[in-house]
């Protein structure tokens, strides 16, 4: 089969496919630029310029409560940020929340992808129900989970636990961080499932049949063939979910307001800037958050492009 001979590895080792040098007509380049620049300019104006201004603010001593008192502070704000301790604990919370939610949603996503890849009665309906949590407005999800599912006296979670004789848990007050992770896992499992399901469907059936003919059991086939095949899909799903979750704000603002170890970087920055009105310091938090995200994003992009280059970027 041709698809098997053009192995991903050889392409991956070679230089990423460069856009084919097309015998361009002279106007081609100008046209392409004209088509591209409106989008590019919009993106720059809306995202890059504000970030540069944020960097500038981060070097200023500036509190909105004292508008007259605004001067150059050098790296003072960064020193404050690092000395303060809120940053490190917030970084810890962010990593813990992002890490556990991504891990749990990937594992559950894998389970559901495998289950829903089989053909069975109502497969289409089951898939439709499964993608729903990702479509639900995060604000609504956070509110419903907090007040309807996890509420300690009337919530459905404690009622279900009671059925099997487990005493009720005061979710919202005792373990706020667990409530955040539960909601995020619930919302991102469908996301992981969709990507992994696409991976399962892209698997060549010949290999699986060959394995069956050779007498390999379902479990062995899954571990030896399917799982390695899924690796790249797992990577994409993990990295995209990580990048989205590193910015997580909605459930924190709605369910816990940053209490109980749930103060993520986004929430901390929001608090410093819009409650504390410490513009300079908040800007420094923003810049630090970006630096951390860049580290993750760089890894993410590499992976994306690795997968991507097989398809032949730019052809």
């Amino acid at each position, binding site marked *: 089969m041709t698809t098997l001979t053009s192995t991903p590895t050889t392409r991956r080792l070679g230089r990423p496919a460069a856009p084919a040098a097309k015998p361009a007509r002279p106007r081609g380049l100008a046209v392409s630029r004209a088509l591209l620049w409106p989008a590019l300019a919009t993106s720059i104006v809306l995202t890059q310029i504000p970030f540069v201004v944020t960097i500038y603010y981060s070097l200023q001593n500036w509190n909105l409560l004292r508008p007259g008192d605004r001067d150059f502070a050098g790296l003072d704000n960064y020193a404050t940020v690092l000395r303060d301790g809120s940053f490190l604990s917030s970084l810890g919370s962010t990593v813990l929340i992002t890490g556990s939610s991504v891990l749990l949603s990937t594992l559950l996503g894998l389970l559901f992808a495998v289950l829903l890849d089989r053909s069975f009665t109502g497969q289409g309906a089951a898939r439709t129900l499964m993608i729903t949590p990702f479509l639900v*407005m995060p604000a609504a999800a956070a509110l419903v989970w907090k007040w309807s599912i996890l509420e300690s006296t009337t919530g459905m979670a404690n009622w279900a636990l009671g059925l099997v004789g487990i005493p009720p848990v005061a979710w919202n007050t005792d373990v706020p961080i667990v409530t955040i992770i539960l909601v995020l896992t619930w919302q991102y499992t469908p996301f992981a499932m969709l990507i992994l399901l696409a991976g399962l469907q892209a698997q060549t059936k010949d290999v699986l049949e060959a394995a069956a003919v050779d007498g390999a059991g379902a479990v062995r086939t899954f571990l030896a063939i399917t799982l390695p095949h899924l690796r790249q899909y797992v990577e994409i799903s993990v990295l995209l979910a990580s990048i989205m979750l590193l910015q997580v704000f909605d459930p924190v603002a709605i369910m816990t307001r940053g209490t109980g170890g749930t103060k993520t970087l986004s929430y901390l920055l929001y608090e410093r800037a819009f409650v504390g009105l410490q513009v300079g310091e908040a800007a420094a938090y923003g810049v630090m958050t970006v630096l951390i995200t860049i580290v993750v994003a760089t890894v993410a992009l590499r992976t994306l492009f690795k997968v991507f280059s097989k398809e032949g970027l730019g052809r």
Partner: protein
Amino acid sequence: MTTSRLRGSLVTAVTWVLVLAFFFPVAWMVFTAFKPESQAATMPPTFAPDFTLDRFETVFSRNMLPYLINSLSASLGSTLLVLALAVPAAYALSIRPIVNVRDALFFFISTRFMPVAASIIPVYLLLQSVGGLDNVTWLTILYIGVNLPIAVWMMRSFLAEVPRELIEAAQLDGARLGTEIFRVVLPIVLPGVAAAGLICFIFAWNEFFLANLLTAQVARTTPPFLTSFVDGRGQFLSVLSAASTVAIVPVVAAGWIAQKQLVRGLAMGAIK
């Protein structure tokens, strides 16, 4: 034979139990929305309530409609503008590649990966100084920045599937750029445009951070409005459920209808 069939049915049963458990919070929310307030938060739960539509009436008497309209304007407006910018850009990146396709794509996606928090302070202060807070138009403009990269990536992936020969044939026939785009390419990628639009709409409709921060009364959208149903003094669960149900219906319905396109959209075109 029978054992394997039995095992198959067992796996199917387990699958359904897990799927229904996962879907339960949504189902319970919708169910609670139809309960009278006194039967909403009870222990044990009320499974056979006196069904009523009163809570939906309450939701709209608390003036939910303007918030829904704000959400609709910001989502629809930003989606249309994003598509108008993204389709040509993706076209330039996939069908008429210029030198730095990789760099351009990299740039677009990196703006999506950047935390909104990184640019919110200057944006807030700017809007404050020009009187742009609590204004749907400004919110719409900011949503363009959020969704543009996703749309460019998605469209690039859809456009890459247009048979090259078709475009070359059109070009040989001396077709103008307009004809090339509107007559040859657009009809083929129209489902892709719809999918990209849907994803942008979903993200904009569900967006909370910017909406919560930059709007107050006039331009408030649905997500921050929902939080106002939490009432410290009385029972609010069924009215909150009713409001949440109304808020999620448009996007959930759209997502169900177009679920096949969702996969590619969510992976930003990285998976074909």
